[in-house]
């Protein structure tokens, strides 16, 4: 611990602090990671990262091939092929732009391409709406993408560095999407500590495509057509790679703390005031702020509410999470997404939490779902208090609807 404290002090001396948005923080991470090829295409809100990348390139601060594509499909295909040739790449999108790239998004993990991208979470059309919803990034949850949600500009920068480290690990070679809530993260500036280049170099090794490098010195044929004799074995390989991510992510966070001195604790989810909590709320992204404020108020009234913020949605730390949740009387999941026709008409996160609990040996508290903050609508402190009241009722064994819409005009 003393060693850690020393690291933190040293950190404060070497680190500069800048007032930047979450998008800019990720652009800074691209510069620190010495990314080789970046492709851009305009769509709100993610494109703020590319506007900043463009400045870094034109000012000579970032040496990369910066290509403005003619659509998201090409945007993701271009970096996919650049990565196959050994280049470290960065890309990103939002909402329907991400969906326009869907074909490229499916082949990227299948080809074991360690692409790192930013998703500026945005509601899917129609109607055209800029506000945050998580359905865009969640659409690839079954394909082999690693998905992580952050809730601050600082975490965005740090997670981008960690994402490169994990994705480009030869044991993994799977893409990683960093989700940042539109507006709350992409368009608001915060004070961010910029780590030194030396420390980044110590943390992040150079990308080595190794045996999969596409180059005349390593003649291989990549992705030949295959029939039923092969496909299942190929899927099993990606299953194995995703299984390994849990360990590699833990290693990366441990090294990150050692080198940068910034502490994240459990990499997969953050626990807030859970030690003595009766009930917990859960959610992803920036809704953590109103939830934490509300919890502090409720605690003044003696309500012991805690919060679990999921960072990594893929891989989903099911055992770990089930063990944690078994400590509480009831769980309230705040879903900033929808999954029409799903079990109990719940959102995606609640459905996954329930399935994680179902097969766990420990206690299985009731899980209520609250669809909230869609289309970028504010999640208010009173919303969170209403949610907590309902979860308390469930904890007392009173029947509650399994899915409720909160902050809706009705």
């Amino acid at each position, binding site marked *: 611990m003393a060693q850690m404290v020393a690291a933190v002090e040293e950190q404060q001396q070497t680190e500069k602090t800048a007032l930047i948005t979450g998008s800019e923080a990720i652009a800074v991470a691209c510069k620190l990671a010495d990314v080789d090829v970046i492709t851009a295409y305009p769509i709100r809100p993610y494109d703020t990262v590319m506007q900043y990348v463009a400045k870094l390139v034109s000012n000579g601060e970032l040496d990369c*091939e910066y290509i403005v594509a003619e659509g998201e499909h090409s945007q993701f295909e271009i970096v996919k092929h650049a990565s196959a040739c*050994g280049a470290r790449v960065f890309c990103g999108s939002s909402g329907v732009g991400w969906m326009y790239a869907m074909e490229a998004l499916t082949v990227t993990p299948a080809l074991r391409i360690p692409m790192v991208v930013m998703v500026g979470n945005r509601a899917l059309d129609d109607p055209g709406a800029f506000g945050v919803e998580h359905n865009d990034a969640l659409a690839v949850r079954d394909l082999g993408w690693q998905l992580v949600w952050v809730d601050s500009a600082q975490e965005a920068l740090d997670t981008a560095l960690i994402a490169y480290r994990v994705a480009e690990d030869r044991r993994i070679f799977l893409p990683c999407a960093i989700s940042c809530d539109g507006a709350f993260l992409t368009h608001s500036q915060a004070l961010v500590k910029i780590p030194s280049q030396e420390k980044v170099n110590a943390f992040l090794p*150079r990308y080595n495509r190794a045996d999969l490098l596409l180059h005349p010195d390593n003649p291989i044929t*990549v992705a030949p057509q295959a029939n039923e004799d092969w496909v299942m074995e190929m899927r099993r390989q990606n299953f194995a790679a995703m299984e390994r991510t849990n360990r590699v992510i833990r290693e990366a966070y441990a090294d990150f703390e050692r080198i940068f001195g910034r502490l994240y604790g459990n990499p997969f989810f953050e626990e807030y005031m859970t030690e003595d909590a009766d009930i917990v709320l859960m959610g992803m992204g920036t809704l953590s702020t109103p939830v934490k404020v509300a919890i502090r108020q409720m605690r003044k009234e003696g309500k012991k509410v805690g919060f679990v913020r999921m960072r990594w949605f893929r891989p989903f730390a099911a055992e770990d999470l089930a063990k944690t949740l078994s400590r509480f009387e009831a769980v309230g999941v705040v879903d900033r997404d929808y999954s029409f026709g799903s079990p109990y008409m719940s959102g995606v996160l609640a459905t996954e939490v329930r399935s994680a609990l179902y097969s766990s040996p420990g206690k299985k508290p009731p899980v209520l779902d609250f669809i909230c903050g869609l289309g970028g609508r504010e999640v208010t402190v009173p919303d969170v208090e209403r949610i907590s009241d309902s979860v308390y009722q469930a904890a007392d064994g009173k029947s509650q609807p399994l899915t409720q819409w909160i902050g809706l005009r009705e």
Partner: protein
Amino acid sequence: MATYVNIEPTQKLDPFKAVKKIPLEEFFTSGHRTCQGCESSLVMKTMAKAAGPRTIILGSTGCMYVANTTYYSTSWVVPWMHTQLGSSGSAALGTAAALKALMRKGKIKNEPINVIAFCGDGGGADMGVGAISATLTHPDYNLLILMYDNESYANTDIQLSGSTPWGAHTTFSPPGKMKRIMHHRWKKNMAGMMAAGHPTCRYVATICMSYALQGMNAIRKALSIGGPTFIHSLDPCPKGWDYDPYQSHEMGELAVNTGVWPMYEVEDGVLKLTGRTQQIAAGKIKRQPVRNYLLKQGRFAHFTNDDIDYFQSKVDEMWEKWLVPGAIPFRREVEADNPPA
């Protein structure tokens, strides 16, 4: 231009002086599962031969993907990677960009490496045309996009594409009791479109591998001139055109000699008719009637004489009314178009 374009040197690939000077080495070899007499696989073979060993090839979905590379069963000697149906432009761009960045930053050895992305007419003239167009506007990257045009989605069962000739029988345009001609669209003029629409693209050519030496030298020029380039190859397809594979070579010659397939190149904006097409235009040889070509293919077996005459009239129009035969449909006056009832 050069002042603003930041481009690396290319491989020096002088034209092969004669067929006997063509190197023996193969970089696309046997064992693929293409049809007997597949001219597109001949294009793959000669393309790889013309490019040589320091080459990366990207292949978008289509016959030359599915039939050439089945798992554990490739035909490629040089590195090869699949790309999605509409992604030949993006694949070439991404590969060239990676090489450029890694070489500039000293992360890999600095040497000119050929980058070729191929696509069929479905992947190129239909789905991929946007990405190809975008790529041809990037003057900083050395790459070649080669479109092998067998005039249908031949891999998926011969469905019509934007490059299928008027009236041809495909599984999406079968002649029926009520409609003899189901396909009323005239073949898309891909090479002309690419040349006219992309002023910084330094080389565009149309070829046919029945004239292999000319085709290979066009590929070598496209790879050495620098910047993004485009080649459109017409490939007779025994499966989709329905003819005896024995006739594959002859079918390509007929396409050129009947004037259905004009061969030309646009180098730094200068347009030049090439090979037999140039000789026809110069009156050195006579343009054959299209029926010699149409009657040898099952896909036109339902044509009446009116249909054949109409086809002939459209080809004549291309030769007589266009400012340059085959190249771009710019003309001096409007002609009435009277397709058969």
